[in-house]
Structure formats: C-alpha cells, structure tokens
C-alpha cells in the first residue's frame, strides 16, 4: 500500500482534455514546457549541432544563414536602390523590418512545421508537441538575435540612432508574438485536417513581405494603405519601428485594439491546440 500512495494514477480517456478551460489548458501547457525544460535545451542543442554536421563549414552555417536575406537588403540599400524613409536610413529601415518579419513569420511557420512533421514522432515517443514547438522557437530566437546584432551594426554604421523609448520594444512585440504563435498553432491543427493550409500560408508569407510595410511604407499607396490598417503584420511592424526610431507608437489605437484581440486569439488557439494535440497524432 505504501507503494500505491507514492504513485500516481494516470487515466487515459477519449477527449478528457475537452473539459479543460482556457486557463487550465494554458496552465497545463506551461507546466508541460517547464517539466521538459531540460529536454527542450538538450534537443535544441542537439539539433543545433547536428543541423549542419558533416558540412565543410559546420556550425558556422547556423550563424550565416539567418544573415543572408538581411545582407542582400543591406547591400541593395548601400547601392541606393532603397531611399531613406521617415527620417531613418534605408538600410536600417529595411533590415529592422525584415528582422521583425522573419520573427513573426517564424512564429507562424514553426508550429505548423512541427505539428506536420513531428506529430508521428510525437506519437511514437510521447514527447509533447508543445515542447518540440518551444525547442524550435529557441532556434528562431537564436536566428533573431543573430539578425539583431547585424541590425545594430548597421544602425551604428549609418548612425540612425534609436530613441530611449526603443527599450520598450520587447513589450511592444509581446502581443505580436502571442498573436502569430496563436495563428501558427491554429493553422498547424487546421493543416492536418486540410492539407492545403500550409501551401496557402507559405505563399502568403513569401509575398506578404511586400504588402506589410517591411521594405517601404504603405500609408500613401492607395488600396494598400487601407489594407495596412487591418494587416496585423503591418500594424506591429509599424508600431515597433516607430517606438524605436520616433519614440512614439503611430496609430496607437490600432495597435491597442489588435493587441487585445491578439491575447484573446492566443488563448483560444492554445486551448484548441491542447484539446486537439492527441487527436492529430500520427495523421499525415
């Protein structure tokens, strides 16, 4: 009987997660990620080392690849292909925007890719998809840090100095990260049901960069300026850029409304993921 007291009874029922509320789903996933924190670290480090093992340049690729698109835009700016915008040097404007774009796009793509490619492995190993997603987010964070270093170098070289309010950037970005991660998780589940979803999303993310105020401002380009007002990418990129380089958030009202909706959407999508995680296992 003493053994019995020290052991936990695990109960497996169909859709027992359906009964969980949004809060308990979020709590459960936070606990799951916390319990697997050392495993997430090991898996991140293992995949980081293994990603380019056997190649001539090895681990160097992990640093070089995230910089390739930024370097191209920087080079084009140096050639004066892009002018200065809103008083900010063209190279800084674009590389800052592109860094945010890749961060937001990654927040959408990573959950989708993990749910698609690892759900069979997750079924076989019982390793939670949430932990796999977080280990890949760590990779995204690393890529973003590498890009930010390059952006800082460009800022210094072009002397487009940010304002002190720029320190609020992480807080400004927070609702965006919640929104796009929520979208990624929701679309990841939907993609298991309807295979076309990932293809459509890839197309949108491939070309969306040109209509989201990343490379040039959209507020004076007719129909795009109307689209700008409802495009969350454009709203968050504009808000982030303006807080860093102007010290205020342009279109504060749009930003606050979108942020509020972002938190609500994130909560709903996290619960949906929590409920559906075991249901999508093993389905290609």
């Amino acid at each position, binding site marked *: 009987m003493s053994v*019995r007291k020290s*052991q*936990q*009874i*695990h*109960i*497996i*029922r*169909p*859709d027992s997660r*359906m*009964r969980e509320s949004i809060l308990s789903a979020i709590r459960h996933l936070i606990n799951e990620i916390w*319990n*697997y924190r*050392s*495993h997430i670290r*090991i*898996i991140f480090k*293992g*995949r980081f*080392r*293994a990603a380019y*093992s*056997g190649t001539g340049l090895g681990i160097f690729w992990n640093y070089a690849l995230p910089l390739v698109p930024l370097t191209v835009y920087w080079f084009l700016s140096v050639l004066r292909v892009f002018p200065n915008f809103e008083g900010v040097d063209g190279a800084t404007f674009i590389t800052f925007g592109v860094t945010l774009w890749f961060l937001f796009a990654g927040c959408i793509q990573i959950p989708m890719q993990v749910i698609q490619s690892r759900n069979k*492995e997750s*079924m*076989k*190993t*019982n*390793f939670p998809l949430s932990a796999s997603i977080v280990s890949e987010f760590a990779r995204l964070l690393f890529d973003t840090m590498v890009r930010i270093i390059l952006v800082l170098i460009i800022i210094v070289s072009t002397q487009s100095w940010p304002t002190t309010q720029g320190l609020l950037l992480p807080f400004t970005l927070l609702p965006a990260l919640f929104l796009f991660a929520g979208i990624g998780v929701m679309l990841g*589940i*939907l993609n*298991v*049901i*309807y295979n076309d979803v990932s293809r459509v999303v890839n197309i949108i993310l491939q070309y969306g960069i040109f209509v989201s105020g990343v490379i040039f401002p959209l507020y004076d380009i007719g129909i795009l300026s109307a689209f700008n007002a409802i495009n969350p990418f454009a709203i968050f990129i504009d808000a982030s850029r303006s807080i860093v380089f102007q010290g205020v958030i342009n279109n504060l009202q749009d930003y606050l409304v979108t942020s509020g909706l972002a938190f609500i959407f994130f909560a*709903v999508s996290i*619960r*949906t993921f929590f*409920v*559906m995680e*075991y*249901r*999508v*296992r*093993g*389905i290609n």
Partner: protein
Amino acid sequence: MLMQLDAVLEVDHVSKLYSREQISTRKRLATTFTCALMGRPSRPPKKLKSGEFWSLDDINFTLKSGEALGVIGLNGSGKTTLLRTLAGQLLPDKGEIRILGDAVAMIDLTAGFQMSASGSRNIHLRGAMLGRSKEDIEATYDEILDFAELGDAINAPVSTYSSGMLMRLAFSIMVMAKPDVLLIDEILSVGDFSFRQKCFARIREMRAHAAFVFVSHSMSNIKLFCDRVMVLNKGKMVFIGDPEEAISVYEGMKFPEIDSVEKRNETLKPQYFDKSKFNFLESYWCDAEGSKRQVFSTGESLSFKIIINLAYTPRKLIFGIPVWSEDGCYVTGFTSSRVNGLKIEKNRKYTFLLTVPNIPFTEGKYISNLSINDGLEFLSRQENVCLSVTGLGGEEWGIVNIKHSFSEQE
C-alpha cells in the same frame, strides 16, 4: 478514480476507431476541431462512416504487478494499436485506461533518434524524449554504454551504425527506465544471440517490479514470458487466459474453417520448379523393392525414390521431404546431408532412395513436399502424392506411434 487493490493496469471497455480512407479521418477530425473551438464535448462515434472500422473493440482486462500478459493475433488484429493506446500514444474513442505509475512502450525503438548525431548524444536526446532528467540520464549513462556493447562506436554518428547496433543502443536506453508497466512490441529479436539473451535476462529482472504487456508472433517467447495471453481478432478480444489455450485459439485462426483442399494447399506453399536446371526428375513413395505405393501400415518400411538428371553440376545438392498431417500439423522432415550435400555431375541420371525402416505415423493421410536445393538455393519444391497410413487397429493417440512398454519395477 479508484483501482483494484493489486492492479497496476486497468483497461475498461476500450475501443479505438480507424479509417482506411483519409477523407473520413479528416472529416471526423474537423468535427472534433469544431467542438474544441466551440468548447462543446465531442460525442463518441455511434455510426461508422465509409471505410471506418473498430481497430480495438471493447477491450477489457486488468494486470497486476509482476504479471505478464501476452497479446497475439493475426496481422492487422489491433495488437500494436492496443499497445499504443495503453502507452498513451493514441487516445481511445471509447472506454478508459488506468495506469498506476509509469508506462514505457518499446514499440518503435529507434523513434526520435537523430541520425547525424553520435550515439552518445542520442542517449541524451532519446532519454530526454522519454521524460528522463539530465541527472537521471547521466547516472545511467555508463550502464547504457555497457549494456549496448558499442565500444568506441558510441562517439560515431548513428547513421554509420548497422541496424543491429542501432537496435542495441535503442533497447539499452529503454531498459534503463524503471517503469511500472512495460509494453513490448515484438522487439526481442534485437542484435545477435548473446545480446538477445542479455535482453531476456534484463526483462526477467524487471518482472520483479513491473507488469508486462507483450506482443509477439513467437509462440515460444509468449509461452516463456506470459502468465496470461489475450487473442485479438479484428480488434475484438476473442480469448484471454491460459497461454496454451490461447495459442491453440490463435492457431485455429491461422487456419480458419476452410475445406481440406484449401488447407492442404496453404500448408504446402510455396511451390516452385526451375525448368532450366532439370533434364529429368521423377519421384514417388515406394516399398523397399522400389515399387510405387501410396498406402502403408504403421510400422512398415517406407521408401521414397528420386530419379534425377540435372542440366548443370550443383555444388551442394540437398533433398528435403517435410511431412504434415492432413490438418496442417508439421510432423517431421527427412533430409539428405545438409553439411556436405550430394555430389552429382550434370547430364547424368542418378537414382536416390530414402528408407524409413519403421513408419511411426498413426492412421491418417500425410502430405509432403520434395525440396531440391543447391545449398540455400531452391531448384524445386513440389508436392508429393498423398501418403495414406493404416493404423494397427489398437489404441492410438496423436500423430506418431512410438514403441513403448510399461513394466513394474521391484
């Protein structure tokens, strides 16, 4: 939820739905997705859609610590699905599973391996995926290395391992966990003979504190390990109980109620004849003088004549005659030397005679093949004329009649 006092695993009316058509799987998933989004509970499926079937249908059993349950059944009967459901890898569609403590599943041993990473790194990765802490993995690291017997290869990428080495590493990582319920799916064919014995020994050790659910097609392993055996057929539990009885139920399923001709054809399969290798071949059952015969009495002398002329010179000619009773039970096999083989020249006729001085078979009909091999290569495998044996008229049991006597000892 309370469990029975001494139970570590309770399976309560568990069913699992599958579909052969992806579209119906996705439709059902879409319904569950809508329910999840709306916060409505999804109802268990009542009516099956096109292509859907119950891969597990109302499974019930209880397992105590130290007990081993074997699961047998034909391919597609739901054995692996049952293990995956017990392991929590898949959710049931009906019923409930209660596990006291931790369950570890040895189903896909190499799942989760990073092929480009070293064996050593994979011990950490795989251990992490099994939910083990870094300290726990470090504590058992040397033990895993010893058990896997990989030596210096542990630092090489696992992509360079042979399948045997990979399985040894995977098995070693798994057995270092100390589960309360161990779910094993046909994996005791890992590595070479001596490594298999080590695996058996480790599993036997684990029996002291764990319950087992063991899926296998090896009836000898099932008999060796299991206290009870469950027979699954098309997802339904058709028997649970004594291993010997379960195996006979399973054997009955392998040869279902088919007429004797079909049963006989099934037993004698596969049939083969390589025309290009033979100039002439004739074979038949006969008496000691070489005259063709089909009917013999128990205890009589039995012979089999083979007249052969090959179109090439074989390196190691071997004759084999496996014999089955009419209901498909393998009785015995007669063979020429398998070590050196018979030496014959091409384009020459040879006659060989098999002699069985005293037929031990009881009354009945016996079916057989004549296999002619050159080493491992089959040249021919063809059915012989059915052999009829008339009994001695007295009491006979089983398939063979072995001379015996009982005597009183002082």
